[in-house]
Each structure stands twice: as C-alpha cells, then as structure tokens.
C-alpha cells in the first residue's frame, strides 16, 4: 500500500488514488500516421526503475498530478503538478 503525497492534500493512502499511465505522453495531431497513433495508444516506457507516471487523487481532491516512482522498489522520488516538467535531478536516473 503506497503512501502518496498528493501535491494538494499531502500524504494519503494508495486506496484514494488511481494510476493513470505514463506522464508526458503527447497526444499526436489528428493527421498522424497509424504507426504514430499506435505508439501513442499502446507503447509505454515500462522501465524497471524510475518511471514518470500520472495519478489522480480520485477519492480526495480529484486532481491529476505527476509522480516519479521506482517500479522496482516503489520508492517515490518526486511529486509534481500537471503541466510541470520533472525535477531536473531526476533526469539522470531516467536511463
């Protein structure tokens, strides 16, 4: 059971949240080709280690936000708001 620090409400139990897939996935323009569309729809980073994800505090303030989480240890390295870039310190951990 993760303990997730909602950027608005502070630390809350995993039970209140929902995982929403990779963060920073750009929605392709309507004119994109099938391969690009497939990448957008299905391709995920799915790395072992640091992963940038988006979550929603579904049973709390209903806000979406970004989370940097280690998929091997479940350690949470950072929480940042929707629309923000990941903290620079994390960049090097993103192999």
């Amino acid at each position, binding site marked *: 059971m993760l303990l997730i620090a909602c950027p608005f409400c502070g630390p809350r139990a995993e039970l209140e949240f929902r995982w929403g897939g990779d963060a920073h996935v750009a929605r392709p323009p309507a004119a994109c080709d*099938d391969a690009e569309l497939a990448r957008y729809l299905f391709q995920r980073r799915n790395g072992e280690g640091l992963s940038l994800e988006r979550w929603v505090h579904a049973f709390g303030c209903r806000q979406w936000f970004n989370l940097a989480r280690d998929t091997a240890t479940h350690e949470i390295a950072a929480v940042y708001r*929707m629309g923000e870039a990941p903290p620079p310190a994390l960049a090097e951990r993103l192999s």
Partner: protein
Amino acid sequence: MNGGRFDAGGRIDRARPIGFSFEGRAYRGFAGDTLASALLANGVRLAGRSFKLHRPRGVIAAGVEEPNAIVDVIAPGDRRPNLRATEVELCDGLAAVPTNCWPSLAFDAGAINGLMARFIPAGFYYKTFLWPRWRVFEPFIRRAAGLGRAARTPVGTRFEHRFAHCDVLVVGGGRAGLAAAAEAAAASARVILCEQDTEFGGQLLWNGQTIEGRPGPDWAGDQAAAIAGAPGSAALARTTAIGAYDHGAVALAERLADGRVRLWTLRAGRMVLATGATERLAVFPGNDRPGVMLAGAALQYQERFAVRLARRAVVFTNNDAAYATAMALACRGAKTTLVDARPVTASVDVAGLVEAGVEMLNRTDVVATHGGQTLAGVTVRGADGGERSIDCELLAVSAGFTPNLQLFTQAGGRLAYEGDTASFRPAAPLETVSVVGSAAGHGLPPTQAPRRIAGRGKAFVDLQNDVAVDDIALAAQEGMVSIEHLKRYTALGMGTDQGRTSGFNGQAILGEFTGRSIEAVGATRPRPPVSPVPLGAFAGRGRGPLFHPLRRSPLQAMHQGLGAALEDYGGWLRPACYPAPGESEAAAVQREALAVRGGVGLFDSSPLGKIEVVGPDAGRFIDRIYANAMSSLAIGRARYGLMLSELGVIVDDGVVLRLAEDHFLVGTTTGGAERIAGWLEEWRQCEWPGLRVLVAPVTTAWGVVTVSGPAARQALQSAGTDIDLSDEAFPHMSVRAGRVAGLPARVARVSFTGEVSYEVNVPTTGAETLWNALAGATGEPRPVPVGVEAWLLLRLEKGFLHVGMDTDGTTTPADVGFGHVARRKVDFVGKRSLTRPDNLRPGRHQLVALEALSGAAMAVGAHLTGSDGRGSEGFVTSAGWSPTLARPVALAMVKDGLGRMGERLSLAGEGRAASVRIVERGAYDRPVEARNG
C-alpha cells in the same frame, strides 16, 4: 508415566480449572494453558500425524513454529482448521480434534505410507501415475492430502478490520521490544507495540530472569501497561505482525479473546523488529519421535506452564542455551543427561550442573531414538565412536537459533551469515526499519556449525512435510540444487510453519550435498503472512450486503412500497419491474410496456448521470469530448451523443442539454455517471488545461421521473406545471425550466421509448412529491410505474441502441450507424482511431434488427450462422417479446449487417435452429419521437 503438573510455579491460574476435549476425550487444564501445555500436562504425547508419511508426532515447540501439533477446533457454527495446539488458548468447552488421521491418532490407516516410504521419495508423483491418466489417481491423492477439515457451513461474523497510524511500530513484546517501545514512547512518539503471544514478556515469561530486581513477567507487564497508557500509543497482545508492505504499511492480525480476528492495516513511520529468534531442531535419525522437543520449549512448558515433562530427560545441544533447560529439568527432579556435540563448553557453570545431578557428555551426538509411538530412550555416540543407550521420555534439543527476520526481508532488508552463532542477521539496517534483541543476533549463544548426524533411520528436516535428509540428497542428485527448486521439489518449508524450524537446516544440508556454503545456497523468500490468518479477516465486516457499495434512488422507499422487484443495475438498486400480486415478472414487464404504448408510464430516471459543464469554452470542450458536434446545439435544445475512448470505441451515450450559451448538461448512463465525470476532468486537467471550462457532477442533486406515453402530456399537466407543454412551445428534444407539482423543475422532452416523454428533474428532496403528483394525476389512463426491463423493451421495439448491451469494448460509431462522425472537422477524443485500417475493413459487426421468420423467440447471446450452420455471422444483443407488435423483436450485431438488409440467417443455439431476417432497426415505427433529434 510422564505428564502431570508441578504444584507450584508457572503462569497458569490453578484457581481456574478448565474442561476441554481432544479427540473426543475429556481433559482438564487451567486458565493460562495452551492446548499443547494442557495436553502435555495430561500426559498426551501423540499430537498429530505428519502430512505425507502419517508418522506419529508430538509437540516440539511452544509457539508459532510448531509443525506437528495441528488441530481443528470445533466451535458452535464454526470449525477452525489447522490451528497450532501451541497457540490455542484453553477455554471452557474447547473441543479440538487431531488432523490428518483416520480412524484415530493412535491407529491411523494412513501410516501405511510410512512403510512404503522408500518407494515414495521426494517428487515420486512426477514419475508415475502416467497411465491411464492422472485424473484417475488424483481423487485418492487429494483425499490423503490436506491437514484439517474446513467448515461445511457458513462461518459466523467474527472478523474485523481497522486502519491505524503510528510513528513507531514495535513488533515483539519481549525484553528487547518492551525496551524499544518505552524508549520511543519517552520521545513522545505514537507507539504501537504488538506481541503475538497472550502476554508480553517473550522469554521473560519463562527464563527466570529478573530485571531491575523484579521478576521478568512483572517487569514486562508493567512496561506494556505503560505503553498502553501513553497518549496515542497502544500495546496489543495476541497480535501478530503478518506482513511488511510498501511505505511503512504493515498488516497485523489480532486474535481477540472472544475468538474474533481483527486485521489491522497499519501505517508506521518507523518499525522496530524485536521478533526474537527461533530455536532449531538438530538433524539426526529418529528426531521426529514424540518426546523430542526443542530445548527452549521444554523449559517453557516447565517454567511457564508448570508441566512435568519427564522423570528422565536427555538434553542434546550444540550451543550453551540448552544448558538452562538441563539445569531446570534437574532442579525439578528429572534425571537429566546433557549431551553436547561440542568438544568443550565455554561460558557455562558446569560445576553447578554437575552439582544438580546432571550427567555431562561432550563430543557426543544423539544418533538414534527408541520407543514406539513415544520416546523411551536414545542412543548416543561419543567421539570415540562408542555408543550407549539412555532411557528417557524427553529429548530436549537445541541446534542453535534463527533470528525471525521475515518482516525485515519483506521490507527490503538483506541478511548476512554470522558463523559464530550459525545464524543469519541483518547485513545492514534499513532507513526506517531497525532490528533489536535476539532478532538482531544479540545474545545468541556461540553455536556449532550446522551439520547432519548420520546413522540408521530417517533424519527429518521438515517435520510437517516429511522432508528427510535422504529427500534432500535425492533432490540434489536430480539437479534440484537451487534452494527454490529444492523447496518446490520436496515441499521443504512449504508447510503451515513455513519452515521456521527447518529452513536453515535445509539450506545447510543442501549446501553440504552440493559443496556450497550456506550463504551461497541462500534462503527462500519469506512472504506474508508471517503466521497464517483466516481469509475472513481480509473481508472484515464487508460481507453480504456490505461487501460492495450499492446505490439507492431517492425513490427507493416508493419502489419498495409498490412491490418492485429490485436488482442491481450498474451499481444502483433499481426496479426491474413491479409485479402485481400473483403476476410473474415476465408478465409485469409486458404489462408495463403496453401501458406506456397505450397510456402513460412513470419511470425513475434518477440514477442517470448528470454533469454540468460551464464556461466560455464549454462548447469547445464538449465538441471534443463527444463524437458528434454539440456546440451547434441551440440554447434550450437537446441532442443525443456518443462518447468514445481514444481507441474509437463507444464508452457511453446520453443526451446533452444546452441550458445557456456557456452552460451544458451532459447526461450519461447509470453505470457511467462516476466514470464519465472522472473522464471529463481528466481531459480538462491533463490535455486541455487552457480551456476556460468547469465540470460539476450533480447526479444525485436531482430526483428524476420520466413520464412517457401518449398520455404523458396530460399526466404532467395534471400534476401541475407552469410550463407550456404544447408541441410548438416545447418541441421534442428540448428543455424547459419551470415548476412541476409545486417544485422547481427542469423538464427535458427526450425519449428512450419512442413515445412522448418528459424527463422531469426536481431537487432530490422533492422526488417523492413529484412521483406522487404524477402517479395521482387525474384522468384515464392511470399512470403505471415502469421498471428497467420494460423500459429496455420499449427502446428495443424502437431499435434504439443500449450502450453496454448492444455494444461491447470493440464497437465504433460506424458499427452502430454513426459513421458520419469520422468526417467531423473538429478533433474529438477517439477520432483518429476511427480510420485505422481495422475500423475500415469489411466484415465488422454492425447493429441491425432481426425479424423472426419462424416466429420463434430470439435469445440474447444466440449466434447467427449462414446456411451452412457454421461459424458466427453475428449475435443477438437485445431481444424480447414485443407486446405492442405481438411478435419477437431483436437487435443483433452482424458482420457487415447494414449492407445485408433482407438477408436470411439461422439462429444457432440449443434446440432447433430458427430462421431470421435482417431488417432495419425500429420495428415499432409509429411516427412518434425519435431519439436522435
């Protein structure tokens, strides 16, 4: 004979005798006893039968590590299988039976397995039962396997759950845990101290130590009481920490004195493990004979439970700890021999032992045990190879200690081997988990390196699963050299004790057979729960109706009063229909549907989702969310729309009302209300944060009754409204505000039935008033309550789509006749996917109606086949008997169906095949209201 109780000493309450039964025989014990201590005091040595070989077994431990004494406890309305007699608290009337034996413990037919042991070595079942096939042999094997018997009838409510939070969790209430808890509490942290035993103190309860001049148990009791009294802190006895999870989450299982079990989901800032260490059995031939016991357990039975275990005892050890047992046995009058495998003994007061009458043998091993079903003597062998027999009823054994570090490993900790004490301990502390006391290896006695003692007869490693040294040898010989393979091949450590007393020995012996160090062999992964927990504890009170939320409409009481058959539709309890007394549900559905066609029906639409979307960009937002254009909607008008996923699949449908230039009301399906509100927020927040728009779900703020039928206008009028209901003033697919039945109301003229329908929304608190006013409308025909089933049938007659029924997770707009949306200029959610090759290919399933040529009923789910009767051309998605048309009606998804009008197909199914024809949707085509306005 052995057995019996000392007149004084121990922590039993001699003033409170307790009657109980074991295997149908009545016994007496005392408050403070466990079932095991009481049985031992009564001289009962045979406590169980082993899993595979059905060998007779006795109690070897005094706590959770017990592998042998597994019993079923029978309580009124319950049967609790596989409890450890060493953990069952004695209570009046307790009825326990042994497991895995028939007809009785003493005479067990299954013991024949023991005689065949050499033909059924580890993994024998993989090598035989190939002919004719496994399923022939399986029932016999299954009956022989299993330990206890589960209850046959439902188990009563005896499970609880709670969440809790603390700064420091201390696991284990022995000396080390109590000290750690006191320290944390002094630093004014919120502390939870949990101890699986009935009392705090750990070894202090029986090892005779005094602390600060006070008897250990007294000190422990006060210490625990102080924690319990500290603000925000708690001391929980009978509570096992069963698993360490992420971010400080720990599960605890609390056994309440009345037999209930409470699961705690705890979040701890920090965890201190003071879980002690578990003594190991030595591996030597005959080490499983009842009467063989761990040395610490023997001491505990004598000192804590005042049980006289034996008149003659042998203590066999490879470390100093068991010397205390020898001393204590001798002091209580047992003729005691101490057999130490080591050459010299270091730190112990040998003179004292000799003085107490203990015979001391060094460099000596126990190499055999004698007796029938219980121990009568042992053979020892000295360094010179000389053997000698010693009569005894108790053999107390210590082969060293294994720190209890399951939770440490689960929390991510690594272990390192320490040779002096022959034990694994934490290699390095974790940031939020510390380990103290013997769990950290502190105070563990120097211990001889693990070794197995050869001799004649089976030397067991895992007692419950009957894994002996030769099984490990065989596994190694067959290449099962990974510790994980050994475990799975021999079942070593897979019993109900999860290898607490055997895992280390298994590792050591596998290492010996494969020429590897014990560290190189490694250990298997300790998983939760550290000690077994009843499944019910995971449900807590959440069983039966409380298992999962169920929503109720503001008209719930009304429906009940009307005799509705209530069912779960999309998480809402809704009326399926309203059968009159003596009327079948099917007949009620037909009657209700006809009432709408011929008069007027009232339908509770309250559960349908309602979401307000406001702001200058509301139109743009809604245009992107829906597959059809919405911003072109005029104020006061309504439009039906489809919502898609990014895969282009229909996820919901409903009617959108435009209330003002910058104000829309989105209608969703009942099941979709929550999901779609979340969906809109996700797009608003994540993808289009720049749009000036707000989203507000308001479903349950409104009570909604839909009035439908040729007489709908009349009924609504008579309920009292200031809204002009004329077609000109209030056309189909529009919305008006006003008053109905004296309530502020929003009325939408939209239709799911094909008849004139008014969806009347009033504040939730007015729902009943509204219903009563409509139901009490004057004039004929009388309004009839209509349930969900008739409602669905009415729309089926009209051929309207029902999302989730006529569509599935693959259906696109084109499949249901909305292909034109793909040509919209605006980019909406799911649009791009509509032109993926697979969505353009021929052969997709498309929604059509069916006409039954033979007049036979068409059942939902039935498949359609071509003339060859093979392969599926499609399937029926909705079907029913139309009371209006007096014939069956159905919708179906048919391959390329829209282009196959008039074609005949066969309905496959059980029974005779029926012939059907593909037709346009809308079997009931009286020119009334179309939904798609």
